[in-house]
């Protein structure tokens, strides 16, 4: 009973919680991260608008690396397998995560896809997020780095208009730069916008069509690859915080 005035109302008790509302996703992302680290795999969360050229950059990367790096990818797609089909055709081992009407990937969806994915012999694992400059930025997937593809046809103002996305980026790939001669596009304005939302602004200009900048992008990836680990030939067994045990390949 209320002891302040004796009114008979039930007492209201405040309870301190101080917990991140997406902490479930954070736990799952941590689990994914330990998978990637155990496999010696560089995991990249590749984000950007629909049509920014995410798949095309990966195709060009596969072509440029010529099998020197073993690439894998999962692509978040609302309704089709088209991106994964394109990537498989380019030599990147790929699978689709069908998201239905969901506009982003979360750590659980990526984890589920990892169960069936032959990740063990890959060097770099791309998580091609759903085309969207808003929601994907909020969900940690366990990646080592966030990369945002921004195409020159989207306009220079995107970093300032979508600060939540760009503030989380470790690298921005300015894509389709072969089109710049045909557009009134100001590269310096994008760089200025990025410097105002992204503390360690880093941008590479690339063209999947001409191959410009793809070597610099591959170099950036190489620099982030973890030290090689001893990989068991038969996959690995490990404890799961989510109450099941299984082998990974």
């Amino acid at each position, binding site marked *: 009973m209320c002891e302040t005035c004796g009114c008979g109302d039930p007492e209201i008790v405040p309870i301190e919680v101080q917990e*991140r509302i997406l902490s479930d996703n954070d736990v799952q992302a941590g689990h994914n991260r330990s998978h990637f680290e155990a496999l010696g795999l560089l995991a990249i969360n590749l984000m950007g608008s629909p049509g920014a050229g995410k798949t095309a950059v990966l195709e060009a990367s596969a072509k440029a690396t010529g099998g020197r790096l073993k690439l894998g990818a999962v692509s978040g797609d609302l309704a089709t397998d088209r991106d994964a089909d394109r990537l498989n055709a380019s030599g990147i081992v790929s699978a689709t995560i069908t998201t239905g009407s969901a506009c982003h990937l979360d750590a659980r969806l990526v984890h589920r896809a990892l169960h069936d994915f032959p990740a063990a012999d890959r060097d770099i694992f791309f998580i091609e997020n759903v085309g969207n400059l808003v929601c994907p930025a909020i969900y940690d997937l366990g990646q080592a780095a966030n990369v945002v593809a921004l195409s020159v046809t989207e306009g220079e103002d995107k970093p300032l208009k979508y600060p939540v996305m760009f503030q989380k980026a470790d690298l921005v790939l300015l894509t389709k730069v072969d089109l710049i001669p045909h557009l009134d596009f100001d590269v310096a304005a994008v760089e200025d916008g990025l410097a105002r939302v992204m503390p360690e602004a880093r941008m590479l200009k690339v063209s999947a069509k001409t191959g410009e900048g793809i070597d610099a992008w591959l170099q950036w990836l190489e620099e982030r690859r973890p030290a090689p680990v001893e990989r068991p030939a038969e996959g690995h067994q490990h404890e799961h915080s989510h109450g099941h045990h299984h082998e990974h390949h």
Partner: protein
Amino acid sequence: MHRLHVKIGELSGVEIDLLKTAFDTFRERTICDGAELAIDTVAPAWACPSCERAVERGAILRCDTCGRPARMIQGDEIILQRIEMEAPNV
């Protein structure tokens, strides 16, 4: 449940009005039915990691003095801070 206090950064990616709508929708027939959602919004702020000088929102996110990239010190949080609930009437 009487009240939930949440803290939402302006650059967290959470839209306050939509969060309120979602709360109103999903609290029905739960212990939060009738509970108030109290939201503290947090403006983003950046500072130099070495000399702690503040860097203004909208400015180049680099320390004027030492040139180091600024670090976001607040503005991207999504936190359930506190709940207020009725204690059993004893």
